[in-house]
C-alpha cells in the first residue's frame, strides 16, 4: 500500500465522519424549526436521486432492467428480492442483446 492509498483512506474517513456530525447538528436544529417536515421528505428524495444518477446516460437495456427491478420492488418491497431479480433481468437482457 503506497502513501497515496493511506492518504485516500485518511481523507475519506475524516470527511465521512465530519459529514455525519454536520447532519447530527443540522438535524437537531431543523427538528426544532418550522422546516421540520423536511426531515420526513429528505430520505426518499436522496434515494431517488441516487437511482437517477446511476441510470442517466445508460443503455436502454439498463433502463429495462431497472423497470423490472421497480416492478419487483413494488410487488415485494424487498431489497434482496429486487437485487436478485434485477441482476437476473440485467444478465438475461444482456444475453438476448448479443
Amino acid at each position, binding site marked *: 500500500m503506497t502513501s497515496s*492509498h493511506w492518504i485516500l483512506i485518511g481523507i475519506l474517513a475524516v*470527511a*465521512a465522519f465530519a*459529514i455525519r456530525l454536520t447532519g447530527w447538528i443540522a438535524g437537531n436544529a431543523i427538528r426544532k424549526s418550522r422546516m421540520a417536515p423536511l426531515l420526513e421528505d429528505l*430520505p426518499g428524495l436522496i434515494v431517488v436521486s*441516487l*437511482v437517477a444518477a446511476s441510470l442517466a446516460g445508460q443503455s436502454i437495456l439498463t433502463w429495462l*432492467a431497472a423497470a423490472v427491478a421497480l416492478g419487483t420492488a413494488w410487488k415485494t418491497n424487498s*431489497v434482496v428480492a429486487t437485487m436478485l431479480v434485477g441482476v437476473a433481468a440485467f444478465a438475461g437482457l444482456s444475453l438476448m442483446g448479443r
Partner: protein
Amino acid sequence: MKQGAIAILPLAFGAAIYGFAFGILAAQTGFPWWGVAMMSGAVHAGSSQIVAVEQFSGGSALLGAALAGAALNLRYIGIVASLAEVLQGLPLRFRLLAIHITGDENWALTMAERAKDPAVGAAFLLGSGFVMISVWIASTAFGAVLGASLPDLEQFGLGFAFTAAFIAMARGMWRGHRNTLPWLISFAVTGVLVITGLPKAYAIVCGALCGVTLSLLMRHTRVRER
C-alpha cells in the same frame, strides 16, 4: 438491539454482494485486503468508497478522488439529520458511535420499522448497524482477497445490483401520491445534470435539494388551503 441485528440480516446479505464487488474493484487499484478492511471500518460509506476508488484508479488527482467520494456522502447530512429524534436521550459516545455505523440499509430499515412501531429506536439502529458494518468490513476484505484472481464481474450485471438495491429502498420510503411530483423532479434534475456532465455526486445533492424545495412548497400550499 437483538431485534435490529436479526431484522437486518437479509439486507446484510444484499450488502455483502456489493461489498464483495467493491473489494474486487479496490484490489484492482492496489489495495491489500487489510487496507480495504481498514477503509471500510474507518469510512463506512459504500458509495463514497466506490466513487473514490474508481476515480483513484481512473488516474485523477488524489485529493480530487477523495473529495468526489466524500461529496457523494453529502446525503448523510440528510440521513443523520432525520435521526435526530431516534438519537435523542442516548449518551454522547453512543450517539457518535450510532452516526458512524449508520448506513443506507440500517437507517432505511430503522425508519421503516419505526413508522410501524414507535418503540423501535436507537437500540434497533445500533443492533442493525453493528451487523452492517461487520458484514461490510468482512465482505469488502473477502472481495479483495479473491478479487485479484477473478475476471471482471461487471459483465454479469454485478454493478446493476447497486441500482436495484436503491430502487428497492426508494420503494420502502414511498409514502403515497404526495411524493409523486417531488420524486419526479429529483429524478429528472439529477438525470439531466448527470447527462450534461456534472459529477454524479453534485447532481444527486442538487436533485435532492430541488425535490425538498418543491415538497416544502407543496406542504406550505396545502396548509394554507385548509
